[in-house]
């Protein structure tokens, strides 16, 4: 991705240099040639030239149109996480980064990831707006309070890379920095260890019971709330007929602002869980709901193929329900 971003960057640099140098040179030449001197005391008046005006409007229009489509295509790829991405939960707070890997392993301000494997971050903030930025990967996204944010990237070489908070967040903003350590796949698995803690899905499952979600969201249609098994990635019909895809952001919002979008056929009786669950717990609940499959016995096998081939990013995030790897599955 870094190469693709840089290609666009250097295209615009080339256009900019061409016009800057070109116009400056022309201006200097004109200024020298038509400087005021005894034989050039009076100018020749030229009011304008319509064909010229059209030409120098259309050419820039063409050049920026290329930039627009190129940038839009790139952005689209950046938004669509590949299906085989591994999920990592990120919580930003003043002034640190907290990461939780799929098997439950936690770390602060340092993020270990495997090389050549798409990584999808599911992010929330406990207080103000932060922004996760890894310049080497050309990746950046705001981390908002009160809503879930996703971003993905794939590291293509091992090493240690800067991680910055890129949205002003107060006193220690410039110290809310860390490292991304990119390791070989097997080194990463060794670092990750076996069951080092409770996985986000497992934590979410516990919360689902302890917060009482299970009393309304039954696995059959008899509950007062919609069935959540297999809901992730599905298109949902809302009260009033509008449709919405149940992606991460929707699931997050349904927990923190349940009245915002009411599923058709249900009453708006669910209370908000904002404040009852921490930012991280809401992300864990989302991870759990996503893991609920109609045939949950089969398990999410395809994501754990070890060395994945270079990914063509054409599959939408919204169907990334299979992205929850089984803990330690690849060992």
């Amino acid at each position: 991705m870094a190469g693709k971003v840089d290609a666009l960057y250097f295209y615009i640099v080339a256009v900019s240099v061409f016009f800057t140098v070109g116009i400056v040179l022309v201006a200097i030449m004109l200024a020298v040639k038509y400087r005021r001197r005894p034989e050039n005391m009076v100018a020749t008046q030229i009011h304008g030239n319509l064909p010229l005006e059209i030409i120098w409007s259309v050419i820039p229009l063409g050049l920026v149109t290329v930039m627009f489509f190129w940038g839009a295509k790139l952005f689209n790829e950046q938004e669509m996480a590949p299906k085989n991405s591994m999920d990592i939960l990120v919580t930003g707070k003043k002034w640190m980064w907290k990461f939780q890997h799929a098997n439950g392993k936690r770390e602060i301000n340092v993020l270990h990831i495997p090389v050549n494997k798409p990584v999808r971050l599911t992010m929330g903030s406990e207080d103000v707006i932060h922004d996760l930025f890894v310049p080497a990967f050309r990746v950046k996204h705001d981390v908002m309070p009160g809503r879930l944010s996703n971003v993905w990237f794939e590291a293509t070489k091992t090493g240690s890379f800067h991680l910055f908070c890129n949205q002003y967040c107060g006193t220690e903003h410039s110290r809310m920095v860390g490292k991304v350590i990119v390791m070989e796949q097997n080194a990463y698995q060794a670092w990750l260890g076996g069951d080092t803690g409770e996985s986000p899905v497992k934590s979410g499952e516990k919360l689902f019971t302890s917060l009482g979600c299970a009393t309304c969201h039954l696995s059959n249609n008899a509950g007062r709330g919609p069935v959540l098994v297999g809901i992730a990635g599905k298109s949902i019909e809302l009260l009033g007929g509008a449709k919405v895809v149940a992606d991460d952001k929707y699931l997050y919002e349904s927990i923190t602002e349940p009245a915002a979008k009411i599923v058709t056929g249900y009453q708006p009786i669910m209370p908000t869980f904002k404040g009852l669950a921490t930012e991280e717990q809401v992300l864990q609940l989302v991870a759990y709901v996503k893991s609920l499959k109609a045939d949950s016995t089969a398990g999410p096998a395809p994501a754990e193929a070890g060395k994945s081939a270079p990914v063509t990013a054409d599959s939408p995030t919204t169907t990334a329900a299979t992205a929850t790897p089984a803990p330690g599955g690849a060992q």
Partner: protein
Amino acid sequence: METTMETNAAMPAESPLYNKRNYLNNGYSLRSWFLTVDHKRIALIYLASITFFFILGGFFAMLVRLELLTPKGDFMTSDGYNRAFTMHGIMMIFFFLIPSIPAVLGNFLVPLQIGAKDLAFPKINLLSWYMYIGGGALALFAMINGGIDTTWRFYTPYSTGHASGYVVTTILGLFLMGFSSIFTGLNFIVTIHKMRAPGLTWFRLPLFIWAMYATSLIQILGTPVVAITLSLAAVEKGLKIGIFDPAYGGDPILFQHLFWFYSHPAVYIMILPAMGIISEVISCFSRKVVFGYSFVAISSMMIAVIGFFVWGHHMFLTGQSQFAGLIFAALSFLVAIPSAVKTFNWTATLYKGSISFEAPMLYVFGFLGVFLIGGLTGLFFPALGLDRHLHDTYFVVAHFHYIMVGGAIMGYMAGLHFWWPKMFGKKYPEGLAQAGAVATFIGFNLTFFPQFILGYMGMPRHYHEYVPEFQFLHILSTAGASVLAIGYLIPAICFGWSLLFGEPTGPNPWNAKGLEWEKSLSPPPTENFSEIPVVTEEAYNYPDAEATVVTRS
């Protein structure tokens, strides 16, 4: 060289070298200044006020640049640094750049250029200065009591739920200042519509007037939105009513939408008037009509209108929908077209001109250079996939300084040097003024060009401490800032010298076209014109070499 120019028949019969009965000596009491309704006097008290805030903003910029000499925060605390750059932004943007050209040169020139005795609402004009200085006093009070660290953008929920200090006081100050801006815009629009001299049709107007008209539209349509937005933020902070803070059920992205709805067009409040000045000066010192007059005029209006629909390009990475992102990106690219058209037309104006290089013209050449770079680097952000990398890095910092400092201040300086003889009727030392233009250009580029590279390398904005590999470029930037400071000091010396010892200039030292030069004296009398001028020709009707040939044959 004046002798070879055709004699200017339009000049009043008696045109003394220095007009003895002028607006400057029409009363010396404080009352005659602070309760004046003369647009020229109000322009001068604005000039003094904004210069004060410019010095203040410059002081904070110096603190910031000094701190950034080293990667560690060893000169100020983090809180001190955060407050320094916040105060730099607030002072420079709200109390210097936004009022700079409109309130000083606009106030002075709009009536003079259209042949009117004053603005349509002289008392509202005076009130606008009181709003401005009242707002400035509140912001100063907040600053003296420790300032604030919200950045000039006041992003929620940081500003409403987390920041300490006199946030609400500062916001109230900006609220008042906003009204001064609205009043100025309102005054200009009505004046330009209703008070043009007989014969002065829309397409005979000087391009500075077109630029001021476009700017005024933004001021009256955009400023109320930011005033309301900031008030809502103050209400949330003071009363804990949830509007923008998700902790109280608010939406932080809503704040960004409302804030940028004004604050993006606000950039055009700064740059459009500068563009107007460039058109005036380049025409005078090339002795030529501006190439493609109507395209340059209309492009100002297009920039003002399209500029209202691009605000979302500040928010591509907030989680704003991809569809919205695409629309905002496409519209943002569209703004490039009228800007490019202007640049091409200015360059074409030089063709077959008779060009001289006095200080105002040197600033124009400087403007062309930095505006090209500033404008073209604007193309990097609406290229969505690239914005992901460059957003909120030093690349952005460099880009907007190229527009707002390089572009707007160079334009302001060009205008100040150009109309100084009209405002005070006195010469300034030309050689020294030219040196000031060159120093500004060199210092400016040395300060801000390295910041593009820093941004591409990944240096985020608002960083008190940074990783050591960025240090070399930061040192370059601070070195450049020192040269830039000299570049700003030189004009101050020139103008001070001019006021004390300057030779009288006569009513039209540049032999320029325009009612202010041809039909009024220097300095102008309080009533501007001895009789209402009648306009019979287009703007910039300079002598034509070919026409002369034709009449001779």
